[in-house]
């Protein structure tokens, strides 16, 4: 006996299933954010954000972790941005296919797929031990800079590619050299796209745990130099939750993390859209 469903019926069934699965996915995201906010926003107040951490996180605030996160992230983008944007400029303006281009693209793609625990192992053995930097902001920042490099390369590359060829031709016809054209025409035009890449890199760095816990350390004291060991927000949250030190403080820290991530993604999204609207 052959059993066939009418194509029109199968279309309706398929549509319903796809719609349901999509709605479930979206509601998972909304649920996660709502759940963290519901339990965590109540914990947020000025004291929590501006006080030192006391009793391993049971009491007090999260100021050292906020400062630690800020410094580690800042260092990572200060290192990764010139490297990433430089790579992107070389890829788009100086190579026309060929082996070098393929090799660099391959490197960036592979690096993007490397899991953060591998960056943690690498940062630990290379920056902390071999270069003898010790656990601290500098080792953590360097490790994260390697991790976010592919994000910045790829986004900047797309942004620079989107700058119309005519812009470059006009600059050349006015007597501009290649470097002048890149500096005065290509980069300013591609800037919003490049900044989007940097912001996405910041987002990855802020939420990272596995790569920083073995490089930046987990000290709760206020950092005094770039060699100081520090505990980033994500690491602090991990320790609070896993060791069951204080669920309330864990929720509060999670809320701060989620707010940061939402803000970072929102800014990146807005910038990208303005950029796309203008040049695509």
């Amino acid at each position, binding site marked *: 006996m052959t059993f066939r469903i009418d194509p029109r019926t199968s279309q309706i069934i398929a549509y319903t299933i796809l719609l349901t699965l999509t709605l479930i996915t*979206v509601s998972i*995201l909304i649920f996660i954010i709502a759940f963290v906010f519901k339990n965590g926003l109540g914990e947020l107040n000025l004291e929590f954000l501006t006080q030192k951490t006391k009793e391993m996180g049971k009491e007090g605030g999260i100021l050292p972790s906020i400062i630690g996160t800020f410094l580690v992230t800042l260092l990572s983008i200060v290192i990764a941005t010139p490297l990433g944007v430089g*790579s992107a400029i070389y890829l788009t303006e100086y190579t026309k296919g060929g082996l070098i281009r393929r090799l660099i693209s391959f*490197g960036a793609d592979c*690096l993007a797929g490397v899991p953060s625990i*591998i960056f*943690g192992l690498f940062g630990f053995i290379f920056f902390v031990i071999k270069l003898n930097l010790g656990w601290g902001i500098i080792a953590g920042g360097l490790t994260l800079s390697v991790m976010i490099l592919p994000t910045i390369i790829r986004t900047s590359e797309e942004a620079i590619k989107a700058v119309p060829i005519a812009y470059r031709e006009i600059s050349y016809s006015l007597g501009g050299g290649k470097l002048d054209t890149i500096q005065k025409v290509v980069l300013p035009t591609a800037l919003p796209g490049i900044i989007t890449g940097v912001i996405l890199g910041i987002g990855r760095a802020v939420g990272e*745990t596995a790569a920083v816990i073995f490089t930046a350390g987990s000290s709760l004291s206020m950092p005094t130099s770039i060699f100081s060991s520090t505990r980033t927000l994500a690491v602090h949250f991990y320790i609070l939750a*896993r060791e069951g030190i204080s669920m309330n403080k864990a929720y509060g820290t999670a809320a701060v993390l989620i707010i940061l*991530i939402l803000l970072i993604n929102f800014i990146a999204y807005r910038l990208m859209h303005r950029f796309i609207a203008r040049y695509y």
Partner: protein
Amino acid sequence: MKDKIAERLLLIIAFSAILALLLITFFIFEQGVPLIFKAGFQDFFSTNWRPMQGGFGILSMIVGSLMVTAGALIFGIPFGLACAIFLAEFSPKSVQKTLKPIIELLAGIPSVVYGFIGIVILVPFIREIFGGAGFSVLAASIILGIMILPTIVSISYDSLIAVPTTYREGSLALGATKWQTIVMALIPAARSGIIAGIILGMGRAIGETMAVIMIAGNALKIPHSILDPVRTITSTIALELGYSAGDHRAALFACGSFLFIIIIILNIIAIRITKRE
């Protein structure tokens, strides 16, 4: 002159990604590979993990990683493909514009937050419904399935969108319904992109660490059911690196080397598949 210097300088900078990849490969292998040879392949791929007493077998962790990854794909693929197809083919531009960034936001949520949600919601839920400790292959699979969704959705969506409109029009002109068009014309045409998305998602699942540590239970034995706790390669590295020394630390780098090789193979397959287009 200035142009020449700039070009040289940019060339050097452009090699930073490759250089980073080489440094990572070198240092992880340098620390880990000698131990694999010292222990011997047979012992390295055994279940005897007593790194303080010279037992360096990682088999139960390999099985653990494979189980949670397979589980993640079982949850991630249907949801991921459904979202990608729904967004690309069944929804108007305005819906695409709102839903795509929302799904991509899932990728931005830190993995520790996923682990935490696992601890406070999923683990107690599994404990209530199915019994056991709750910290299990199942819990890890569900959370990892959610975590790899954005990867699968983004890449599959992009490859579906890239299928020429003529394919759609041709199929519809032959009297096919929209769903028949998707199944018979669009998915086959976008196949390589979809597979690449799944492979990259698989790489994310194998490599994920913090979320898995928090919810998988980390017991060091081969699980017999999906409700048993499990320890992955990544969890072992993160749990033990802090206090390890000597051969124990080398063994963790050996785990890292093994993981790194698998990830690079997956990446190369995914890159090859997409570049063939």
